[in-house]
């Protein structure tokens, strides 16, 4: 199985440890075997160990260490945010965040909705079973 996601200039990665946990950042330069220079529209350009980054499938077209304006423009052109939120990984994270922020009342409404849905599914299943039996 060959590698598909490479560390390269323009690779979008997710920070999985530290202060910027959960942020999407772009690798703008490689410092040495272990560290990359990383940048994002809402943070100061800084170095990060590769161990703190999880590479994504998204790659944008930038030159080595672009200015902030150029980086933002490139991210908009490639629609990083949109691609991320459509990807299954991105969607999963959004759902996790939503679930964590649920109110006690929201959790109650969710429980009611689940029970209703399960009831409807079971009814349909019973109908189908009846059809097969007869």
């Amino acid at each position, binding site marked *: 199985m060959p590698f598909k996601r490479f560390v390269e200039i323009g690779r979008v990665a997710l920070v999985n440890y530290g202060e910027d946990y959960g942020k999407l950042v772009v690798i703008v330069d490689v410092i040495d075997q272990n560290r990359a220079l990383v940048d994002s529209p809402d943070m100061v350009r800084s170095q990060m160990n590769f161990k703190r980054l999880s590479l994504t499938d998204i790659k944008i077209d930038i030159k080595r260490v672009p200015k902030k304006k150029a980086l933002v423009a490139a991210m908009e052109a490639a629609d990083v945010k949109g691609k991320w939120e459509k990807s299954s990984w991105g969607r999963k994270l959004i759902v996790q965040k939503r679930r*964590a*922020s*649920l*109110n*006690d*009342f929201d959790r*109650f*409404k969710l429980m*009611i909705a689940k029970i209703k849905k399960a009831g409807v599914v079971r009814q349909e299943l019973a109908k189908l079973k009846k059809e097969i039996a007869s």
Partner: protein
Amino acid sequence: MAPKQKARNPELIPGVGKVSRSKMYHKRGLWAIKAKNGGKFPVHAKQEAAAVVEEKQPKFYPADDVKKPLSNKRKPKPTKLRASVTPGTVLIILTGRFKGKRVVFLKQLTSGLLLITGPYKVNGVPLRRVNQAYVIGTSTKVDISGVDVSKFDDKYFGKQVEKKKKGETEFFEAEKQEKNTLPAEKKDDQKAVDAPLLKALESVPDLKAYLGARFSLKAGLKPHELVF
């Protein structure tokens, strides 16, 4: 600012002044004051000693000296309410016979306790007092603008003092039976408070069912990570 006045008798060395006693007498002008007052120094008239009121010795006093307790002028304030607990908030009661019940908070009484109601028809919790410490404040709010809670205070909830009757056991049993039922006016108060509340509850879908259900921790729920 006026320039610093020269000291009349500057200290040459600690304890030794520049000017002698007689010279100081002249410098201070005591001779002039004496001359003004006919050779004598003016003297304040002696103050009359205030008339001494003779205190009568008490008839009885304790054999040993009794210590007087220190005076305490501290006035306790009602407990500070948590930011999450505001009038109209849905609270989760954690202890007592109503543990897990979700109730509506009405107001804080002067004793610091919280006045809550189920409403009674929804979950069986009557108008009641509850301590803030045994309550979780959720972020769900109910509109209680139509509810009048001005007549409720701590005295309303105090134990009714019955007159002790030194009667026979028959009397005793009769009294006990009377005590167990709620007086009609308390039931009316409950209805008066709950009526506008129920209307407000119906406007939000599922809210009535929410208040009727008890809260419990299920598998996978971590209280420290839950948002209430």
